[in-house]
């Protein structure tokens, strides 16, 4: 794979990169991290904003920020990954349907509950008639959107694709993730999450969009040299696959780990570091954004901010040029070989 990330728009619990905004560390004591408030009005007229659920707001604004930073008015194609889709609107319609016994319902929430609402809205607002797909495949949703973008760019030698990862939280989804064994039901602090070994993860949400091309647009970029994704329920097999991915790369400055601080996650990543790269510097990022299926997009967004302004909420080993990102959401793994041009 050889793709260039030229810009990013990020909305997350660790802040956003709208205007002068940037991501930063934050202290909390919670079970779930909602994305921090952003100035959506700067990008979306108030009347339209009122009708948009959080997922749509986050997605549309993140996409606009990415396009603005790349200096493009509209992309050639749009691909989006979202495991859960538009939960807030889904629940809004479901709630009324159940409580009102299927009567006196209105269409707005139903319309916006469709999984491709965000990619459709971005197309509508940027008047982009191009290729437009939405992937909803659990912890690989964002990665599949990127693979689709890669194929699009290969077939259409020029142009740029807007690629995004997005997932939103609701009270019900937090409950479901706790019952499903991912989320912690005890409040955890930032330090707890960094230290790891907790009963579960702090659940998160967010949106990150990227303007992606086959050739860099400017001097500053992230080059994606390699992306390897796989599903594995066997942790030792997963460790072996990650190990062979890392061994094929040279000059790694830092390995960025998707350790969510939950017990099983900490064990996996500790084992991985010990056996695969004990002498390479590592860093973690999920204490910033929380755990969610499209969290790889947050990590890439954070690195994009570093490329853009030279700052980010975690420290990377100098010269911070070759970064490996290892992430997983449950049994869905992704390994990224990245080259930063600052």
């Amino acid at each position: 794979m050889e793709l260039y990330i030229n810009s990013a728009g990020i909305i997350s619990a660790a802040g956003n990169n709208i205007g002068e905004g940037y991501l930063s560390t934050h202290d909390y004591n919670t079970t779930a991290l909602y994305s921090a408030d952003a100035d959506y009005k700067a990008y979306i007229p108030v009347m339209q904003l009122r009708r948009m659920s959080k997922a749509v707001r986050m997605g549309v604004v993140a996409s606009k920020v990415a396009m603005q930073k790349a200096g493009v008015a509209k992309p050639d194609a749009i691909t989006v990954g979202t495991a859960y889709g538009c939960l807030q609107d889904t629940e809004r319609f479901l709630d009324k349907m159940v409580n009102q016994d299927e009567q006196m319902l209105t269409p707005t929430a139903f319309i916006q509950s469709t999984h491709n609402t965000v990619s459709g809205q971005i197309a509508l607002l940027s008047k982009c008639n191009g290729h437009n797909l939405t992937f909803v495949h659990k912890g690989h949703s964002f990665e599949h959107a990127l693979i689709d973008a890669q194929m699009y760019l290969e077939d259409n030698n020029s142009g740029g694709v807007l690629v995004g990862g997005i997932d939103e939280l609701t009270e019900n989804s937090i409950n479901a993730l706790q019952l499903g064994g991912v989320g912690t039901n005890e409040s955890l602090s930032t330090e707890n999450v960094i230290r790891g070994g907790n009963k579960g993860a702090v659940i998160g949400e967010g949106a990150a969009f990227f303007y992606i091309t086959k050739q860099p647009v400017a001097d500053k970029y992230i080059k994606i040299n390699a992306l390897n994704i796989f599903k594995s329920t066997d942790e030792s097999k997963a460790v072996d696959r990650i190990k062979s991915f890392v061994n094929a790369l040279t000059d790694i400055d830092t390995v960025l780990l998707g350790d969510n601080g939950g017990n099983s996650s900490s064990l996996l990543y500790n084992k991985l570091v010990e056996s695969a790269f004990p002498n390479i510097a590592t860093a973690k990022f999920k204490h910033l954004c929380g755990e969610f299926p499209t969290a790889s997009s947050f990590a890439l967004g954070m690195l994009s901010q570093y490329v853009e302004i030279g700052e980010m909420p975690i420290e990377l080993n100098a010269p911070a040029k070759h970064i490996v990102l290892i992430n997983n959401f449950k049994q869905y793994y992704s390994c990224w070989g990245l080259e930063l041009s600052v």
Partner: protein
Amino acid sequence: MSTKAHIVNTGIITSIGDNTEMCLRSLLEGKSGVGKAEYLSTYWKDELPVCEVKKTNEELAAITNINSSYPRTALLSAIAVQEVLGGYDLSGLRIGFFSANTVGGMDLTESVYGEFKDNPETADFNNIRHHECGAITELVAEHFDISDFVTTISTACSSSANSIMMAVKMIEKGMLDVAVAGGADSMSKFTLNGFNTLMILDKEPCQPFDNNRRGLNLGEGAGYVLLMSNEAMQRCSANSICIVNGYANANDAYHQTASSPDGIGNKLAMSNALKKAGLQPKDVDYINLHGTGTANNDSSEGKAVQDIFEGTIPKASSTKAYTGHTLGAAGGVEAVFSTLSIRDGIVYPNMRWQTQMEDIDWGVVTELQTGQDIKHVLSNSFGFGGNCSSLVFSKI
């Protein structure tokens, strides 16, 4: 490009049949699947006809020996996947599963939502566990042990045309040898009520492309094609029925649910798919229309076809009067019908058509045509979010 993606087999279940040959027989005999809801428990069952697969979840699960407590969409998907996999020995080949759906596990979620919201600890979590669209695909992939590349696309009513498009690309690029591609969707109260609020459901059996059309009937089902590279086909001693020769996705960028009056996205999808296939409009022998039966879709699609094919409109029909609109399955179901059109030389009639549409100057095929030489079929799938997809199937 090193290889084309060949369709070597089909798998389908809809309200008009549990497999390819049963569906084909219904198409030939003019049997529609529309009727009163018997399996979906809804307030609207006497008012809004639907196209249900006439089996309980237990009966569906028994066909593939899958867990009957899974969402109905997974049960339908498994049946069509079992058929499409056929008896081929695929060992040693890289296999992908590209499945689309829009409803996920909503049929189960909606049954327990009220209780879950009030008391998540006591509600049956098994009815929430598989809520995500991606869960449906994973349950079926696990059942058939497909793991090389597994993905779920959800772009409303064009979902499974897009999953076929992506599968074809990955085979053409040599990233996979074999792919099962299409989609599935079951009935749910959520979907029925959602479409009902949009006031686009017909209270009678639907009449696509008729001047007096009143809306669509919702349907359920699953449809997949088995795609192989040249090499995989040789290794499996499989025969090519046709190839997926062209494909395109475009966005109407007009409205979240409605199509633009002139079908901008529709035209782009059709013309780009033909361009990809290296074909001229006059080369197309049959168009399987999206043709839902709503005033808006059929008018936009009709005008787009008129513009693209300029005076020489190929034979064209919608098959949704038979199956209803199966949403996330529709592109897969109609890919199967398009494949059979080429295989058997058939053009399906646009059932229940009575009156010519006033805003277009061409008409749909109204009588069954057999013994035709069908070389190229164009299949349209258009959805919410302006999502427009066209696929071109060609005999080689």
